[in-house]
């Protein structure tokens, strides 16, 4: 039986992580179908049909799908699940909200946030915020799997021409009403998906000093992170917190400034591709995970760092 991928979109276009989820789905079985549920999704559906790994599209449209409410999405996917061995989607807030609702209706134990497909029934997933990896085999007839997007490359986005089949909408779930969505508009990339993250810790000593972090982040086109200690001290709001109880980030470059490297912080950033630590305590645990460590007073090092960056002709963004 084929794999059913749940496409994520904003009604106008596909969200990029759908391409990563499609790659994971194609590693489970080469026969990948995708369902797209929404309202006026013609353009997003066309984009989906162009993914070469997707062999068939199921399109479900109705006004009550406009805001992606899990209570509305689940019944139609549960019905479609009859014909599929696996239901796959990204483990971002969309998929996290939706998939368990489907799994419970199917009486299936979900496998969350996988980072590797070992075989069609066996997956690798991080537990304890990535401090351990578990190999999990699912013995359920139907498998509900969410995938960590950053662990799979995006699939090709052009060249395919999957046929599109219309599917009837399910009834509206009237007990949940969408009111509004406030998308954070910022020139800065989002912490969870940024290519570069610059983080400050308690070593910053004050909220005011965090503007030093902001300057570097602006220069590098980076997101701003913080340790729990910096958040608890009130230097910065907690939506910047990186760590086990904050966000888990995997950027190409993570710069930790004035962060000692508590376990709870390391759990949120140690999978980053390149890690830089700037700290005046040479024994700080952060150096044990850093590719490049600089033992220095950050108040001297940051201005020098800006100066050196300014000397570069080009900076990748």
């Amino acid at each position, binding site marked *: 039986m084929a794999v059913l991928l749940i496409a994520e979109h904003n009604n106008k276009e596909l969200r990029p992580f759908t391409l990563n989820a499609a790659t994971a789905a194609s590693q489970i079985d080469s026969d990948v179908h995708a369902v797209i549920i929404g309202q006026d999704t013609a353009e997003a559906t066309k984009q989906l049909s162009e993914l070469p790994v997707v062999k068939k599209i199921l399109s479900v449209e109705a006004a009550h799908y406009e805001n992606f409410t899990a209570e509305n999405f689940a019944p139609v996917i549960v019905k479609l699940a009859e014909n599929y061995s696996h239901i796959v989607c990204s483990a971002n807030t969309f998929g996290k909200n939706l998939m*368990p609702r489907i799994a*419970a209706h199917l009486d*299936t134990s979900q496998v969350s946030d996988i980072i590797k497909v070992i075989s069609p029934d066996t997956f690798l997933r991080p537990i304890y915020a990535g401090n*351990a*990896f578990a190999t999990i085999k*699912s013995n359920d007839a139907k498998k509900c799997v969410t995938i960590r997007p950053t662990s799979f490359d995006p699939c090709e986005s052009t060249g395919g021409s999957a046929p599109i089949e219309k599917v009837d909408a399910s009834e509206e779930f009237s007990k949940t009403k969408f009111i509004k969505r406030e*998308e954070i508009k910022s020139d800065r990339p989002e912490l969870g998906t940024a290519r570069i993250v610059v983080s400050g810790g308690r070593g910053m000593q004050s909220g005011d000093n965090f503007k030093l972090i902001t300057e570097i982040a602006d220069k590098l086109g980076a997101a701003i992170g913080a340790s729990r200690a910096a958040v608890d001290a009130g230097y910065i709001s907690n939506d910047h917190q990186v760590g086990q109880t904050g966000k888990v980030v995997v950027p190409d470059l993570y710069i930790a400034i004035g962060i000692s490297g508590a376990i709870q912080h390391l759990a949120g950033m140690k999978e980053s591709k390149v890690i830089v630590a700037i700290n005046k305590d040479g024994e700080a645990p952060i150096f044990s995970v850093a590719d490049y460590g600089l033992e220095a007073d950050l108040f001297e090092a940051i201005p020098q760092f800006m100066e050196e*960056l300014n000397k570069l002709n080009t900076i990748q963004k």
Partner: protein
Amino acid sequence: MKILVAVKRVIDYNVQIRVKEDGTGVVTDNVKMSTNPPDDNAIEEAVKIKEAGKATEVVAITVGEEKAQETVRKALAVGADRGIHVKADGILEPLAVSKILQKIVDKEKPDLVFMGKQAIDDDCNQTGQMLSALLNWPQATFASKIDVKDDKLEVTREIDEGLETIEINVPAIVTCDLRLNEPRYASLPNIMKAKKKPIEEIAASDLGVDVSPRLEQIKVEEPPKRKAGIKVANVAELVQKLKNEAKVI
């Protein structure tokens, strides 16, 4: 309005996890355990709603081994009125826990069920949504703000793109984000008082729910270790390495 709050006992977030040498799991013997952090936010919110006169009773529940009861006792010390401990040993998957909670909901008939958005041990992020599906109730996951309006809740949810606000009819499930509130500490007098509050013990086997695992944990291993890095002498060398060696800027 009655609020049922589910709490889970997990390894404390400040503890360095050690993987067992035989690959069967992580070491939990002699390791500090605590309430799952966002479950503390769930309790706090329920107690605040009661203090605001919008709820009449807060019931804390946990599912698990003998010692899991500590988390219920802690909830009682910060304001829950009574507790329920569903006793079950071994690995309990979120599907099994949600089926147990469904049975308790049938019996207790709460108007709201709160819990943390995710447990920091298995990181599944499933139980609230599954319970909501089994009950066919509305769900508000990753809640960072809750307004109780008669028989409706207005909930702000933390989503990847920013914030989303929804309105759900009671009865409903809410899973709580860390940003929802600042959990209080239990005062000594309240810890003493909590010892007298009742905790009902129920054997999971008496609930008529199949809780046997569907997933096989083949092995648990340490994540790949990072290659040891180098110390650079100065900022100029650092920037040069990032530019020319790591090629990330």
